[in-house]
């Protein structure tokens, strides 16, 4: 199955997103460790713990975006889930911003388009085919098709002519007549 061209574009966009986020996070870290030139150092005293958590989350998303972008370009089957995760997170943050009264409308457009595109049947089938391809072990002969199983689901193992556990000569714990025990106890 041929890779849809949009997947390559999304891979590049994810890489770009990862690079930008990495740059922002790196700048904040450098500012925190005061390794930037003095005129670029910003005051960090007013930053709340919630904002620091946001920086941490952005760092994680930056890494995931980079990994996801590379994985999409290399056509890895799990890249689809990772891309959806990253874009879903971006949208959640944007929607939270809207709830708080901010207006990140333009930032919302790209994740929306990416999510709907990745969710189209042709793209999801493409990644599904990648999953199947990777799950087939090389040098393993395929098992014979069991037409009986195909119509009725998995077979329950069992001998159709003789069930050894039912042979009365064998004594097994689970052959004891339960009712009689019960009667003795009561």
């Amino acid at each position: 199955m041929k890779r849809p061209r949009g997947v390559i574009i999304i891979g590049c966009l994810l890489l770009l997103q990862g690079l930008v986020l990495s740059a922002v996070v790196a700048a904040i870290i450098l500012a925190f460790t005061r390794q930037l030139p003095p005129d670029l150092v910003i005051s960090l005293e007013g930053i709340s713990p919630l904002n620091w958590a946001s920086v941490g989350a952005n760092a994680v998303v930056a890494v995931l975006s980079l990994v996801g972008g590379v994985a999409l370009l290399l056509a890895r089957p799990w890249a689809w889930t990772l891309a959806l995760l990253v874009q879903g997170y971006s949208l959640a943050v944007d929607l939270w911003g809207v709830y708080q009264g901010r207006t990140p409308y333009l930032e919302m457009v790209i994740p929306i388009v990416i999510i709907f595109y990745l969710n189209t049947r042709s793209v999801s089938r493409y990644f599904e085919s990648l999953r199947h391809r990777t799950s087939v072990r090389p040098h393993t002969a395929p098992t014979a098709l069991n037409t009986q199983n195909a119509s009725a689901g998995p077979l329950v193992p069992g001998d159709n002519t003789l069930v050894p556990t039912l042979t009365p000569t064998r004594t097994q714990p689970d052959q004891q007549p339960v009712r009689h025990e019960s009667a003795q106890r009561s």
Partner: protein
Amino acid sequence: MTMQHLTNNDLALLRRFEPILCFNRGEQFYPMSADLYLRQAGLWRHRPDADPALLVPPGKLDDATLMERCEEIAGAVYYLRVAHAASLAEVRAFRHSSTLRDFHTGPGRLVRVGLLPRFLDLFFSLSLLLRGNTPGGLAVGAAQRYQIFEQGSGSHRGTWYHGRVVRQHGYIALQYYFFYAFNDWRSSFHGVNDHEGDWEMVTVYAARDKFGQIQPCWMACTAHLGEGDDLRRRWDDPGLERLGEHPIVYVGAGSHANYFFRGEYMPAVEVPFTQPLARAWREIRRLWARLGQGDSLGPPKTQEGIHIPFVDYARGDGLRVGPGQPQTWQVCLLQPIAESPAPTWVDNYRGLWGLRSGDLLGGEDAPTGPRFDRSGGERKRWYDPVGWSGLDKTPPPAAAIETLEQQQQRLRERREELTHTIDDLTAQLMGMEMGVAAQRATFSRDEAVKAQRQLENMEKELMQLKAERADVDVAEEQCAAYAERLAAGDPGDPRAHLHAPDLPVSAADLRLGRLAAIWSAVSIGVLLLILVVLVQFFPSILIPGAAVLLGVYAFIEALFHRTLDGLIRGVAVALALVATVVLVIQFALPLLLALVVLVGIFILVENVRELIT
């Protein structure tokens, strides 16, 4: 269906194919004699405008008294009653001493299902308080009574089936009815319902082979309320277990539903009035799929509404009853044989075999007997035992080739008929075409249109007939190939008739582990408690807090059920939809204007292009 007299040969056939029933550890009730139950029961009558009346006290009832006291009174429901609810102390003592202690649920049913069914289960349990149910302690009371029956002396002790033999459509249907004193599925095994009295059945279908010998061909089991093809299995189904000619059946713990395979089943109860909701959801998904989004929609399910699943344990690790087993069968025939008449209650008692609890949904009321249903009509499995399991469209093996030849003959006749009609119609069509061509110059416009329409209609009819003949040709070829396979002794896929048969849950579900079980047991309660804490102490973050909480729950559930991919996809798409709605609301006017501009440009371009060309 008139009552057939049995012969000794019929009795021998019943004996020959007696099933072996495998029960669970912890089972309290085994198939007993319905006559013994009747003789120990009191007869009661319920009328809509009066309290239940005891007509015959326990121990005084027999066939004659039963018939005499069950008068036809409009709205009256007669029922038998043996057990009385045990006290709380008795219940506690019984549970400590009974074999119920041997039963372990394993991964409970709640661990195997999602969050919504767990919520609904809570309401299902609460609904029992409102809709009428079997009193608490009745199951224990019934178990104590049952043990007394079994310890007593008399010819009616032991494990019994109630046999019946019906000849229909070339088959001999050997019906084995089992009567249990109580169905304690809910109170003892976390199932759907409890009710006093329980009738279940296994049918073996036999037929004469080409040498005139009677051979088994199919078998069917009652499992809850189903009927149709999925109830039966062909005798040579590789999954069926048998000991000699005795089929092995696994019985649900407490429910006494019969299953072909050992395992744990998950029958589901539909939440009332949820079918429209499920249908609406399906329509939304269909629309979504039409937009090219998500996976394509599969065929509609037979049960559409929202369901609460329960587990029916049919592990077969307890007592086995049947030929060569620790407990063997005693027979009571439901039809007369030689000098011995059938029990009169078979044909004349239409009341309930146990307590009438007044449950609005009926699930906690005792069942009626093997012949009649609650409306007083005959059960399908009684008057049409072959059609009940959908077997009336399948000929017995020895008649299969002959039936196929008859079908081939029908197809040949139809083909000849079609060829004749096609030839006639073709001649007519050609004539008509010639006629129209000859008169074309003199036809008025209306006449020409009319003639053309006639021609088209006839052509269409001809095409349909030719298509049907082609179908008949294909069917004939397929029948010929099938006839060859049958003649070679290949009867085809033994499971081809199945649509959605009952199968045990997969081994993967059973491996969900202890942690998942604990989570499923506490999750709903903890969720409700945290929501209350949020409402009471943190109202300012109620909405985001609840959203995060649900997100965490969904994540844990998805981890346990290995559906993380689906969850991420679903959440991302939902967020994208919400964000789209937000954008549409926020930019409604500019979007509308942009749309109008686009339409305007489109019309402009089209018109100008037309003008230029």
